[in-house]
């Protein structure tokens, strides 16, 4: 079996070797047999479905994002089972709305902020155990098996996109394993993407009629997102850091 070439040593191959095959099988079995009990995933099994030819990304049109709309946040919360519980300082927030006002011109805008799924993610660089990792298709995840809860990735993330689980969690979703004492963030709804669907936030944004969020393969020149990026100006946040986010913004 020939493994695909890796661009970055933190990336994981998409094809299964024997060890990963068994790990994957065991994980699927544990999810099936005892949901909610042994769901500590996002290791080899999450990598196995990644296609090295793709780079998943998102384009957000800030002009279409309404200040009073929170649909993407609600959808993410429901899809992945995290919720605001009255403790804004410690509650997890995989995605949040940010309202902006230019200090000089007074221009106002609103946009969703989540893990930017960087090409060279600082969180992956600093993680001592390799729990923070990037799939070959560009999705940045946390392997809950080996996260030790040091929070160095939270210090390193330029976008404050990560949350630490500060207390016991109940009613977990089987597609989004979480654990007290570990770090988590937007998974780009990897379970949906691997099933050929779009992330929950994008779906809900479309459902509102705003259509501010577009999801797709940045590597496919014929994809809608690649065409939009080619034809209209866009930017990544903190482009000065050269981390090349997979989430792009336009009209900002």
């Amino acid at each position: 079996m020939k493994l695909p070439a890796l661009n970055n040593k933190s990336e994981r191959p998409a094809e299964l070797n024997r060890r990963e095959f068994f790990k994957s099988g065991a994980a699927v079995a544990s999810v099936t047999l005892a949901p909610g009990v042994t769901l500590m995933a996002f290791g080899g099994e999450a990598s196995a479905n990644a296609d090295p030819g793709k780079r998943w990304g998102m384009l957000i049109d800030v002009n279409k994002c309404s200040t009073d709309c929170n649909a993407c946040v609600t959808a993410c919360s429901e899809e992945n089972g995290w919720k605001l519980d009255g403790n804004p300082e410690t509650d997890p927030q995989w995605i949040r709305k940010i309202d902006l006002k230019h200090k000089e011109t007074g221009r106002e805008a609103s946009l969703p902020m989540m893990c930017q799924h960087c090409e060279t993610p600082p969180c992956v660089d600093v993680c001592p155990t390799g729990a923070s990792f990037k799939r070959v298709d560009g999705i940045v995840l946390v392997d809950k098996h080996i996260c030790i809860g040091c929070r160095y990735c939270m210090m390193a993330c330029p976008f404050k996109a990560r949350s630490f689980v500060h207390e016991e969690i109940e009613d977990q979703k089987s597609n989004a394993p979480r654990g007290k004492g570990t770090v988590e963030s937007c998974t780009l709804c990897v379970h949906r993407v691997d099933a050929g669907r779009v992330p929950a936030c994008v779906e809900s944004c479309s459902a509102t009629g705003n259509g501010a969020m577009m999801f797709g393969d940045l590597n496919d020149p014929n994809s809608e997102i690649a065409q939009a990026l080619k034809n209209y100006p866009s930017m990544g946040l903190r482009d000065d850091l050269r981390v090349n986010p997979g989430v792009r913004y336009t009209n900002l």
Partner: protein
Amino acid sequence: MDRTVYREVKPTPAIWLMAVIAAAFIGAAGLAVLYIEHHGHIVTGMNNQIVWGLPHVFAIFLIVAASGALNVASIASVFGKIENKPMARYSGLLSIALLAGGLAVLVLDLGRPDRLIVAMTKYNFTSIFAWNVILYNGFFAVVGAYLFVQMARNISPKVVKSVGTAAFVWRLALTTGTGSIFGWLVARPGYDAAIMAPLFIIMSFSFGLAFFILVLGTTFPLTGRYIGPNLVKRLGRLLGVFAVAVLYFTAIRHLTNLYAAEHGDFERFILFSGNIYTKLFWIGQVLIGGVIPAAMLLRHAENTTKGQVILASVLIIIGGFAHLYGIIIGGQAFPLEIFPMYEVTSTFADGQINNYTPTIYEWALGMGGVALAVMIAGMGVVALRILPMNLSDRNIDPTEPDF
């Protein structure tokens, strides 16, 4: 020159009392850890904005001081100062004790301390944290070997010097690694600076020597042993130079930041906004931890008394703690600048100055680390021939000018 005789310390009632107090603090830290692990970090003052809190201030202070506490031994073995040789064993022991105390705090604050074995077996070598795991473990081995060759019979001085040099190089690497934890954080305006590594090295020289003098100055009278005033004076003079060097590196760090418009807001926040970090900087770090002890130790250095040197050491430790609190907590309290030139608001404290109030559990954990270091050092001097019977001024090289 006196012949140096090393003897185990007899556990007097005063030493037993210290051991009981240290054990109480360690016990309290253990309970705090169990409480935090049971309930989660929700019971601490740390949150999603201030992700590293008081335990990290204690831990990094102890780790930085650990490498600095080895100075006295390095000066003896590597740089050949014979007056320091009788103190070299204690210097090595104290450095191991401080590192153990600091690491204990660090790992017990992890979200999943039960997974420590993962940190020991899975390494991501782009992470300075992973390198530090190796540097910290290696430090125990290298300094342990250094202690062994100093204490074993019939070991050639050349071997001692070689192992001492290895320990000296290792400690420089270790502190470089500790400073780079912050220096390599590219996204935060309070960090992302190459000067962090040398700054941490000079901080370790200062804090470590201050800790060494303080512990030596209290252990000796407690055990009825004599220490010469000129020896203490000389250690004090060196400490004064280190304190000035810390001020210098601090000044360069902030001046460089002030020069860059992009870091202006952060510098105004730390230096001029009048908040807790401004007070900690000017009063704690600069005045109490820098200017006052430097003046005490360097102005009329020939007349400095033992008491003044010990007091200056205490001030440097207080200032050092303020310094690290400012770096670690102050650096996180200032918001990330994701959208320059924009005012930002969100449910996740974007654009806000982040608040942090440590709880009793964080204090207990941090103090437990200090107590653990004291306990290990104490057990070491009771069980091993670490401390000399006296530290006479006659060990000072008579050909060297006094001041």
